[in-house]
C-alpha cells in the first residue's frame, strides 16, 4: 500500500465513523422525534449557538458500540451573543437519551470545563434516566451520576446554569433541572418526575397521566419546579439566549448593559394606583412605567402570581424586580410566594444584579391552612434571603406595607440602600380597619346604636391613619425619601447608578442556618 492510500484509508475511516456518530440513533427514533415535534440534538445546538458553531468533546465515546453514538449525549462549547458557553445535550434517539458510564463521564467533564473557563453551562435535557443495565458503572461511583449533582451544587452561584427541558427528566435525572438557576420547559414534551405514572400505579396504586404527574404546565403553575413555559423548542432556545443577556459570564463578570429605552407608553403611575388602599390594580402596568420598554424577562410567571419576580432593565441596567400583585389574592404572601421570591433573590444576588422591591402588601396569609404548611418558616426563609443579599437594594412602598410584609419587601430595618415611599403609601403593623377592630373590639361591641358605632369606628380609623401618616414616618427618619410617582423611574435610575460601587461583606461565618 502506498503512503497516499494509507492516508486516504485513515481519512475514510474517520469520515465513516464521524458520519455514523453525528447521525445519532436509528431512523425510527428520528421519525419519533418528528412525530413529537422535537428537534434532533444537533439541530438544537445549531440553533442555540452563534452561527451554529461549536466544538465537541467525546464525540467518539462508545464509538466501537454501533448503537451508542456519542453515548447519547453531545457536550459542546460555543458562543451565545459573543459569550462563550458550555452545553450538555441529551440525544433521545440513542437509547432514549439514557445515561451510561460514558454519558455520565462526558457530562462531568463539560461541567469541569465550564468551571475552568468560568462560563455559563446549559443542560439540554431529554433523557429517560439511568441505564439500569449499566448501573454499577455509572450510579454509585465517585465519578458516577451523583458527581453531576455535586458539581451542579459547587457551580451554583459561580456560573449561570440553565436547563432547557425538551423531554423527560426522570428519577435521579430530575435533579439536573432542580439544581439549575432556571428551567425552561416545552409544553407537551417536557416532564419531570421521580417515579413514572407506571411505577406509581405499581408501587402506591395511584393512577395518573404523565401530564398530571410531572408535565411542564403542572411544574410551571403548581410545583414551581419550572420557571418558563414555552410552546416550542425554538422558543425555548430563544428564551435561553435572552435570559443570558441579563447575566455576567460568571459571578465576578461585569454587568451586561443594553441600549437604554424609554418606558412603554401607557397610563401614569398616578392614574394606575387607586387611592382606596383595598382596591385591586394591575402591578404589571405600574412596572411598565418604571422599566425600559420590552425589557422584562419574567421568572415563574404562572407560579404564585400574587407576587411578580422579573428581570428587567432601567436605563439599560439589568435589575431584579420583586413586586406584589394586588390583583391576585390581594397581593398577600403565601408559602409558594416565599419560595418564589427566595429563589429569585438568591439568583440575582449571586450574579450581582441589583434588586428593586415594589411593595403593596397586606402581609402574610393567616389561617390554619397556611399555619399547617409552615408559613412562618417559609416567611423566615424569604426574609433571610432578602436580608442576606448584598447587592444594591431599593425598597419602594407603592401603596401599603403591613406587618411582616414590610420586612419581606426589604423594609427599613433590612438595610435597603434607600426606602422610598410614594405620597399615598401606608406603613403599619396592620391596616386601619383591622387595627381599630383589634384595639377597640370591646368598646365597639358595647355601643348599641349602629350609627354611633359606625361613627366611632370611622373616627378611630381616621385617628389611626394620621398616626401612620407618611410624612410623620419621613419626619421620624423611618423612610428616607418621598417621591412623586411620575419621578420614580428617574430617581431609581439615578440611585442604582450611585449604588454601583456598593460592597458589603457578611461576617466570615460559613453560612447562616437556613430556616427550612
Amino acid at each position, binding site marked *: 500500500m502506498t503512503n497516499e492510500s494509507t492516508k486516504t484509508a485513515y481519512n475514510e475511516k474517520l469520515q465513516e465513523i464521524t458520519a455514523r456518530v453525528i447521525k445519532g440513533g436509528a431512523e425510527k427514533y428520528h421519525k419519533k422525534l418528528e412525530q413529537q415535534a422535537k428537534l434532533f440534538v444537533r439541530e438544537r445546538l445549531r440553533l442555540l449557538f452563534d452561527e451554529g458553531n461549536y466544538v465537541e468533546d467525546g464525540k467518539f465515546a462508545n464509538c466501537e458500540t454501533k448503537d451508542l453514538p456519542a453515548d447519547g449525549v453531545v457536550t459542546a462549547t460555543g458562543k451565545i451573543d459573543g459569550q462563550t458557553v458550555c452545553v450538555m445535550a441529551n440525544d433521545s434517539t440513542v437509547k432514549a437519551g439514557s445515561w451510561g458510564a460514558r454519558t455520565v463521564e462526558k457530562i462531568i467533564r463539560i461541567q469541569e470545563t465550564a468551571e475552568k473557563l468560568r462560563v455559563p453551562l446549559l443542560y439540554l435535557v431529554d433523557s429517560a434516566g439511568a441505564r439500569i443495565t449499566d448501573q454499577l458503572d455509572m450510579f454509585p461511583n465517585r465519578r458516577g451520576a451523583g458527581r453531576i449533582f455535586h458539581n451542579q451544587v459547587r457551580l451554583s452561584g459561580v456560573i449561570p446554569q440553565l436547563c432547557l427541558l425538551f423531554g423527560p427528566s426522570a428519577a435521579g435525572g430530575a435533579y439536573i433541572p432542580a439544581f439549575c438557576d432556571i428551567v425552561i420547559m416545552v409544553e407537551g414534551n417536557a416532564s419531570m418526575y421521580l417515579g413514572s405514572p407506571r411505577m406509581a400505579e405499581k408501587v402506591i396504586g395511584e393512577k395518573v397521566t404523565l401530564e398530571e404527574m410531572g408535565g411542564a404546565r403542572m411544574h410551571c403553575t403548581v410545583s414551581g419546579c419550572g420557571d418558563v413555559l414555552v410552546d416550542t423548542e425554538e422558543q425555548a432556545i430563544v428564551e435561553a439566549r435572552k435570559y443570558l443577556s441579563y447575566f455576567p459570564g460568571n459571578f465576578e463578570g461585569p454587568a451586561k448593559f443594553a441600549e437604554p429605552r424609554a418606558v412603554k407608553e401607557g397610563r401614569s403611575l398616578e392614574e394606575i394606583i387607586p387611592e382606596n388602599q383595598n382596591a385591586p390594580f394591575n402591578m404589571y402596568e405600574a412596572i411598565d412605567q418604571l422599566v425600559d420598554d420590552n425589557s422584562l424577562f419574567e421568572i415563574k410567571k404562572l407560579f404564585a402570581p400574587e407576587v411578580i419576580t422579573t428581570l428587567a432593565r432601567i436605563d439599560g441596567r439589568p435589575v431584579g424586580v420583586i413586586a406584589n400583585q394586588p390583583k391576585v389574592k390581594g397581593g398577600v404572601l403565601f408559602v409558594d410566594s416565599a419560595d418564589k421570591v427566595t429563589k429569585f433573590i438568591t439568583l440575582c444576588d449571586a450574579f450581582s444584579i441589583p434588586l428593586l422591591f415594589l411593595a403593596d402588601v397586606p402581609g402574610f*396569609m393567616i*389561617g390554619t391552612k397556611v399555619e399547617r404548611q409552615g408559613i412562618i418558616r417559609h416567611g423566615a426563609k424569604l426574609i433571610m434571603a432578602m436580608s442576606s443579599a448584598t447587592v444594591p437594594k431599593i425598597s419602594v412602598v407603592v401603596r401599603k406595607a403591613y406587618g411582616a410584609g414590610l420586612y419581606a419587601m426589604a423594609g427599613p430595618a433590612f438595610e435597603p440602600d434607600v426606602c422610598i415611599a410614594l405620597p399615598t403609601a401606608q406603613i403599619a403593623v396592620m391596616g386601619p380597619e383591622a387595627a381599630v377592630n383589634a384595639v377597640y373590639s370591646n368598646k365597639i361591641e358595647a355601643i348599641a346604636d349602629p350609627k354611633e358605632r359606625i361613627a366611632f369606628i370611622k373616627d378611630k380609623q381616621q385617628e389611626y391613619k394620621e398616626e401612620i401618616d407618611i410624612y410623620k414616618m419621613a419626619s421620624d427618619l423611618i423612610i428616607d425619601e418621598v417621591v412623586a410617582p411620575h419621578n420614580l423611574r428617574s430617581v431609581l435610575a439615578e440611585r442604582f447608578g450611585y449604588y454601583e460601587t456598593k460592597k458589603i461583606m457578611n461576617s466570615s461565618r460559613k453560612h447562616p442556618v437556613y430556616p427550612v
Partner: protein
Amino acid sequence: MQEVKATMAGTILQIEVKEGDAVTKGQVVVILESMKMEIPLEAEVDGTVNKIHGAEGDFVDEDEVLVTIQS
C-alpha cells in the same frame, strides 16, 4: 364549563353577574374580600353564567366554587 373558584379563604363581597348573564373572558364575576383586600375573580372563558353558588356576605374556603360558566 368553567368553575370560578375562591383563590383564597374569605368573604363574598360582591357578585357582579346573574344566572343567565353572558360573560366574556377576563370579565370580573365575583369580588372576594380577604385580608381586608378586594380580590376580583374573572371568567376564564366566554360563556353564560350557569349557576351562582353562595351569596354576598358568605364565608368561603379556598377552592370553593362560586360561579359556574357554560362556555
